[in-house]
C-alpha cells in the first residue's frame, strides 16, 4: 500500500487545535486507504495528530520533514 500522500494540508503558522480541525474537516473526502499529510509547525500537532488518529481509529504513519517543516502522515483506514 502506498504511503505517498494523496493530499497535503498546509497548516504552517496555525496554532492548536487548528491543524487537527483542518485534518478532521478534510478527512471524509479522501478515499479509504489513502494518505493525507498535514504540514504543521505548532508543537502540539506532534502529539495531537497521533492522538486524534488513536481516538478516531485511523492509522498514524509518523512524522516527516518537508522542506524543513514538520509534517504528519495519516492513512484513512475506515
Amino acid at each position, binding site marked *: 500500500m502506498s504511503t505517498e500522500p494523496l493530499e497535503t494540508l498546509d497548516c504552517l503558522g496555525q496554532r492548536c487545535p487548528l491543524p487537527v480541525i483542518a485534518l478532521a474537516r478534510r478527512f471524509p473526502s479522501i478515499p479509504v486507504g489513502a494518505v493525507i499529510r498535514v504540514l504543521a509547525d505548532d*508543537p502540539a500537532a506532534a502529539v495531537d495528530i497521533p*492522538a486524534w488518529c488513536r481516538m478516531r481509529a485511523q492509522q498514524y504513519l509518523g512524522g516527516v520533514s518537508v522542506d524543513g517543516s514538520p509534517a504528519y502522515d495519516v492513512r484513512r483506514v475506515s
Partner: protein
Amino acid sequence: MSAAYFDAATAAPLHPVAREALLAALDDGWADPGKLYTQARRARRLLDAARAAVAEVLGVRPDEVAFTASGTAAVHAAVLGGLAGRRRAGTTLVRSAIEHSAVLHAGQRHVSAGGAEVEVPVDLLGRADLDAWRAAVAAPGTALACLISASHEVGTVQPVAEAAAACAATGVPLLVDAAVSLGRVPVPGGWQLLTGSARKWGGPAGVGLLVLRKGTRWVSPYPADDRETGRAVGAPDLPAIVAAAASLHAAHTESAAEAARLSALVERVRATVAATVPDVEIVGDPVDRLPHVVTFSCLYVDGEALLTALDRRGFAVSSGSACTSSTLVPSHVLAAMGVLTHGNVRLSLHRGTTAAQVDRFLAELPGIVADLRAEVGL
C-alpha cells in the same frame, strides 16, 4: 451563580486551621528563632512544634524535616543537593517524563553544568515504565532518581514502592516529589528525599518541605547558611510555617474521609463528561488515581477559549494546553502520555468543593463545549 474553584492542585484555599494558626503566630512568631532572648525562644518553640507536627504526619524524625521558601525551592535543593552529595558515585539524574517542571528545570541546570539525565517514559495512562526505571537506576553512574508520587496533571498514582525497591537494590537514593499527595493520600516509604508544598494542602504559599532521611548524602547547592541546619537559606517565614504545619496535620486527620468524598465526585465527573460531551478523552488512570484530580481533553476545542468560557461561568480550572502556557508548548505530561493536548481541562478538588458545584459544572460543560465547537464550524 456561586464561583467554584477547581484548581487545588495549583493552590488550595487556605484551610481554616491555617488561618487561625497564621494569625496567632503573627503575634508570637515574629522574632528570629536562632537568637538567645525570650522572644526568640518563643519563636523557636513554635518552629520546633511545627517541625514535630510535620514529622509526625510523615512518620520521620523532626531533624529530618527542613522548611524551605517554597515547594519549588525544596525540589531544586533536593535535586541539585542530592546530585552534589553523590558526585563520587556518578553524575546521572534519572527521572520520569512526568515530573513537575521544577524537577525538569533543576535537571536542565544539572545537564548544562556537565551532568547527564535519563528520562523514564510513561504509558498511555501516565504511569512510569518500571522496566525502564529499573534499567536506568541500575546503570553505572546514576547519582539520584526522582519520581513524582502521583501525576499532578492527570492524577495517576506512580509505582513509588516498586521504584524505591529498584533504587534500594542498586543503592541509588530516591527523591519523591509528594507535593500533590501530602495531606490527601499516604505516600509509600523507601525514599531518602521527599519534597512538598504547603499551598497544595491548604497551607499558605511560601512554605516548602525538604525531608532528608538520616544518612542521606546531600550537599547544599547554595552558599552556606546556618538556618534549617543548612538545608534552606534565609530567615524562615515562621508564621507561615506554623500555619503550614497546623494545616498539614488537620488535612491529614481529615484525609481518609475527604479522599472518599472527593473521589466519588471525581468518579462522577469522569463518568458524566464521557457520557455527555462528544469527542472527549478522559485521561489518566480511572482507578489508581488521586482522589481529587480529574483531567480531560475536548477534541477541536481551544484550551484557552475553554478556560475563559468556564471562568465566565464561575469555574476556575487549569489546563495543559499549549495556548494556556506562556511558552505555547503543550504540557510535557500530556505529551509524554501521548494524549490529546488541546482542549485540556484539569479539575482539582478540595475540602470546600461541594457536590452542587460539581453538578453545576457538569450541567454547563456540554453547552460550553458545543458553543466553542460551533464557532469553528464543527
